[in-house]
């Protein structure tokens, strides 16, 4: 049963990726300028080079063959050159993307660790003062713009108190070899004598951006967990569990929490796209060398190959994250495990 479901899900993934790649490919025609420039990132090349590019991307053939050639180069890791830097786009993505994922994952971790327990507390003390306090705080977190919050925190903690650094991933003093792209893992893998100091420094750099980024998803998760909990606590199996003689905490931990967390897991998957969008703004403000800031810069500079590459990466990531959350939800939920059709 589960295997069938996975096959369906993967088929869906395949078609979504197909559509995404088609869209990316058509962008090279939709963007202003020459198709060959948009694809290769080589501007006003000589005759010779021009022929080479035409040959490489099969620009004289029909659209289908062009698309296949495009896919082939994408798969081979040849994503063209960036118009702005002249470097291969794929190399940029490789170094920048892990930074974004790292930031987003830590923010997500914070929001899960804070959001879900808070939501459970709010539901357990429904309509008591604890609930009202949590509601008010989430309302603020919900409606505060990310950039404003980021600037306020920078003013308070970096400029006034001087406790935390205000930009970048790590102090320039430390040199960390690029291995996985995830800074904390790289530091742990490296053999430097200043390993511990570098780790602490990286943590300091990470703290403010991930808090800023986590604010909104945390508020969403608190609200969502609370609603899901209240919903479940009203179900008749909770009443019958209570009639069985279980106490309040047994009911919450054995029956309510498990049922309430199922919709929350799929909600976490849906939060990923918001998270990446917010990450772009956060990266710009904290000069975080991630793909979001780079993508925004590329848009300003009309660096079309870079835009295409960045778009492809970010969208692919969001699709896969949603898919993973969905599969996780299905594995954990015995009722939806038997659902026969995949859905997004």
């Amino acid at each position, binding site marked *: 049963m589960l295997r069938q479901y996975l096959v369906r899900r993967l088929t869906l993934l395949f078609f979504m990726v197909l559509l995404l790649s088609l869209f990316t490919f058509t962008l090279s025609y939709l963007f202003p300028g020459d198709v060959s420039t948009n694809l290769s990132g080589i501007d006003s090349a000589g005759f010779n080079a021009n022929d080479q590019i035409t040959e490489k991307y099969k620009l004289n053939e029909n659209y289908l063959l062009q698309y296949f050639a495009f896919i082939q180069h994408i798969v081979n890791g040849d994503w063209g050159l960036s118009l702005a830097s002249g470097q291969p786009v794929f190399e940029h993505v490789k170094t920048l993307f892990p930074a974004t994922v790292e930031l987003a994952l830590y923010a997500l971790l914070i929001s899960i660790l804070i959001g879900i327990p808070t939501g459970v507390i709010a539901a357990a003390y429904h309509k008591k003062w604890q609930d009202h306090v949590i509601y008010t705080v989430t309302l603020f977190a919900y409606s505060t713009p990310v950039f404003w919050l980021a600037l306020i925190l920078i003013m308070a903690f970096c400029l006034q108190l001087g406790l935390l650094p205000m930009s970048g991933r790590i102090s320039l003093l430390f040199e960390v070899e690029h291995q996985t792209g995830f800074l904390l893992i790289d530091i742990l893998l490296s053999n430097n004598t200043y390993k511990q100091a570098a780790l602490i420094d990286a943590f300091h750099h990470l703290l403010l951006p991930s808090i800023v980024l986590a604010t909104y998803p945390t508020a969403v998760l608190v609200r969502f967990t609370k609603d899901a909990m209240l919903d479940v606590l009203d*179900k*008749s*199996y909770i*009443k*019958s*569990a*209570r*009639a*069985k*003689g*279980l*106490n309040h905490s047994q009911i919450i931990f*054995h*029956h309510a929490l*498990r*049922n309430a967390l*199922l919709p929350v897991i799929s909600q976490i998957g849906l939060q990923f796209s918001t998270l990446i969008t917010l990450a772009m703004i956060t990266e710009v403000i904290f000069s975080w060398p991630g793909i979001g800031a780079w993508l925004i810069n590329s848009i300003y500079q009309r660096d079309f190959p870079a835009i295409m590459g960045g778009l492809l990466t970010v969208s692919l990531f969001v699709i896969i994250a949603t898919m993973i959350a969905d599969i996780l939800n299905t594995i954990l*939920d*015995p*009722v939806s495990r*038997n659902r026969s059709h995949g859905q997004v």
Partner: protein
Amino acid sequence: MHLLDIRNLTIELNTGDHVIRAVDKVNLSLKEGEVHALVGESGSGKSLIAKALMGVLNERWQVTADRIHWQGVDLMRLPPEKRRKLIGKEIAMIYQEPSSCLDPTAKIFEQIAESIPEQGLSGYFWQRKKQRKQRATALLHKVGIKRHTKVLDSYPHELSEGVCQKVMIAMAIARSPKLLIADEPTTALESTTRAQIFRLLKSLNQLKSMSILMISHELAELNDWTHGLHVLYCGQMVEAGPSKKVFGSPKHPYTQALIKSSPEHNVALEHKSELYALKGTIPTLQHLPIGCRLGPRCPQAQKDCVATPQANDFHGHTVACHFPLSQK
């Protein structure tokens, strides 16, 4: 001594602008080993009484009573935590939609294991799982489920309603309660399973001398094996007494109408003639009549019926009516 003794139980719903009295001064008492039935139309407050007794009503409902004695202990005066413990140990309840009363994400074994009391197990906690499994299997056998391995390993949505109800009963008898409240246990079931469930409850009553409070609207099926019958209308107890007396010679017009309208009573009816039914419908909770709530629909109603009738006792057969039917 009475196992359960309820005096003047009143359940009210506070809607903000006014208070609706859904259950009005109901008395009910039950001896050990007896089967009693609470009968009435839907909306007459049968389930509310059971839920109030179990203490699982929402905060919106207000429960007051002169006394709710459980084996001499007044439940109304116990602190909530103590009350929950006492009730969880001695009273069990099964519901009308068994599949929705089982946790959809937990396997049947986990749910049965939860209701097996810790005191009955011996040894350290790692030895207990096996004992729990044996107990759960035995419980399933007791309620007539033979494929215990499959059922124990299933989720509720993989089982039929009938099996779910049997699992609910298994969970209910795990603590060997003194009283089982069955809230329309057979409404969602087909007739063969229904007969099985009734047989099961009957045998539990006879073999374990477990008292049962049946909540139902199927008069005919209850009549021959229940000891007492309580008829409710709109939250008022209209007639109560030994089943044979109430069923055989009803003194309240409503009970009479209820018996007359049952299909079994109408077997000899002529082809295409009308079935007997009381005129009108059960009033909504917002528009309850004053006095005897049956008043507007009652064929025998007279001027006095605007005052709430007192319950009159005729040798253990109580009737709340100003003009009880005189029997042949």
